[in-house]
């Protein structure tokens, strides 16, 4: 038992013994002690080993997420030893001239920057019912950064992709425990040669940190985070989609809607690619008590490869909707911050909802499509508050 819990338990017992039961102790407790995690600031700890850290949504207040607040998703152990002098990136498979590049050589290539909102495919998994196995992310497995590095297509051009090359596989240096399949995935060649797909070495102007894939990671903008392989060490051009656990059965979505709880055959699924349309409310927090008067509701909205067209807010549990104001900062693959000025004139309990629409006409649904692995949760966001 940790010391704080131990103290409170003994304090409560002592108070009960003294006939003075302090009800405040039953609800005033902070939700457990914090855990030291150098370089990561006030993050929601989903797992220490492997490292899985969620950004608290109240931190969605800057267009670019400071790196210490950027969510972290690892499937495996991070590389235990990684000397940038020894690091190499190989490019092979269906190419005419296989290459091996050092970090110094990668650094000499022309650099391109993309502001991208990276979201884990499982963000929001914890809201699906019935529950599904996996990291039980809430709303914060998404963050935005300016990623910089050479274009993947420049490196592929140097290697000379053969006409048989249809998919591009990424392998990282994460360390695989037991007989767990390695975290290897692939993307179609069309996305690989897109001008915005990068071998990213920098994030918000600084070299990648270890948690985010130092010294280089793939950056596949607008797609599920799993496409953007960290600690990248091998790029291999393939004739077909990579055959491995993290392409199938993992990271696939049913072709047809299924009943919640229903099993799905692998042949009735397709690999996840681009993110869908979504908004979340950063402030106010769910369960907040707020004074009557002007209440600012703000949050973020994103749509993968599409652009956000509008965000609407309801303060009456979805009966009526009003447009939010979109933030000025924008970039094709990045979220838009938004805000809504609400004048609450009557005390009571309110359910505030946010709903995003993108320029492809996709609208955030009232219910997300249940699927066996809990991917792409994007139901209309909702917080309940009390105004008095």
């Amino acid at each position, binding site marked *: 038992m940790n010391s704080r819990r131990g103290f409170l338990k003994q304090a409560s017992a002592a*108070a009960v013994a003294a006939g003075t039961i302090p009800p405040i102790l039953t609800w005033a407790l902070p939700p457990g002690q914090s855990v030291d995690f150098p*370089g990561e*600031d006030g993050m929601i700890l989903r797992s220490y080993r492997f490292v899985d850290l969620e950004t608290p949504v109240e931190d969605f207040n800057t267009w*670019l997420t400071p790196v210490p607040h950027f969510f972290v998703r690892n499937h495996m152990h991070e590389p235990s030893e990684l000397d940038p002098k020894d690091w190499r990136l190989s490019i092979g498979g269906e190419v005419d001239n296989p290459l091996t590049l050092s970090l110094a050589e990668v650094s000499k290539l022309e650099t391109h920057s993309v502001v991208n909102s990276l979201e884990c495919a499982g963000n929001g998994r914890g809201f699906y019912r019935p529950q599904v*196995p996996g990291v039980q992310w809430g709303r914060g497995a998404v963050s935005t950064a300016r990623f910089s590095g050479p274009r993947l297509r420049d490196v592929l051009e140097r290697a000379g992709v053969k006409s048989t090359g249809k998919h591009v596989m990424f392998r990282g240096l994460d360390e695989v425990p037991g007989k767990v399949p390695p975290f290897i995935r692939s993307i179609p060649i069309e996305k690989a040669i897109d001008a915005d797909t990068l071998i990213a070495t920098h994030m918000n102007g600084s070299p990648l940190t270890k948690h985010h894939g130092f010294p280089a990671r793939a950056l596949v903008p607008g797609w599920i985070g799993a496409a953007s392989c960290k600690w990248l060490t091998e790029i291999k051009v393939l004739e077909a989609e990579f055959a491995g656990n993290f392409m199938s059965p993992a990271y696939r979505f049913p072709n047809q809607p299924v009943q919640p709880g229903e099993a799905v055959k692998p042949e009735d699924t397709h690999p996840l690619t681009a993110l869908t349309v979504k908004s979340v409310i950063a402030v106010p927090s769910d369960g907040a008590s707020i004074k009557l008067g002007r209440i600012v509701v703000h949050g973020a909205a994103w749509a993968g490869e599409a652009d956000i067209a509008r965000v609407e807010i309801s303060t009456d549990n979805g009966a009526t909707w009003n447009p939010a104001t979109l933030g000025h900062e924008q970039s094709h693959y990045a979220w838009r911050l938004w805000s809504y000025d609400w004048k609450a004139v009557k005390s009571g309990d309110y359910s505030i909802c946010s709903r995003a629409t993108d320029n492809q006409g996709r609208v955030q649904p009232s219910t997300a499509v249940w699927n066996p692995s809990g991917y792409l949760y994007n139901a209309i966001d909702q917080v309940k508050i009390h105004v008095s």
Partner: protein
Amino acid sequence: MSRSAKTFVAVALLALMAPATFPALAQKTASVTADLPAGPMQAKATTACLECHEARIILQQRLSKAAWTKEVDKMIKWGAVVDAADREALIDYLSGNFSPDKPPYEPQRTSADRKASGKMK
């Protein structure tokens, strides 16, 4: 009442009177590792599961027995060492402790580093 009990009452009352003392207490940091719950399979589950990942991955799940069975079998395939005679008991232990009717899991936070939380544009 013992001296230590009196001290605890005094501290508890002080805490009630001065809620500002709570943040200071909350800044204390916890162990980085979490434990699996007590029970006949605690030791064997610790050996089988926590070799590769930590307990929080399990503590946050709320799954049916059928779903736990699939997870345990997947993990055995992936290298978890579970004696065939223990498989059923391990599934019962996990589905008993981490079923959908259990209260929601409350995750901890990493310590706040105010130097790191500067805003950027």
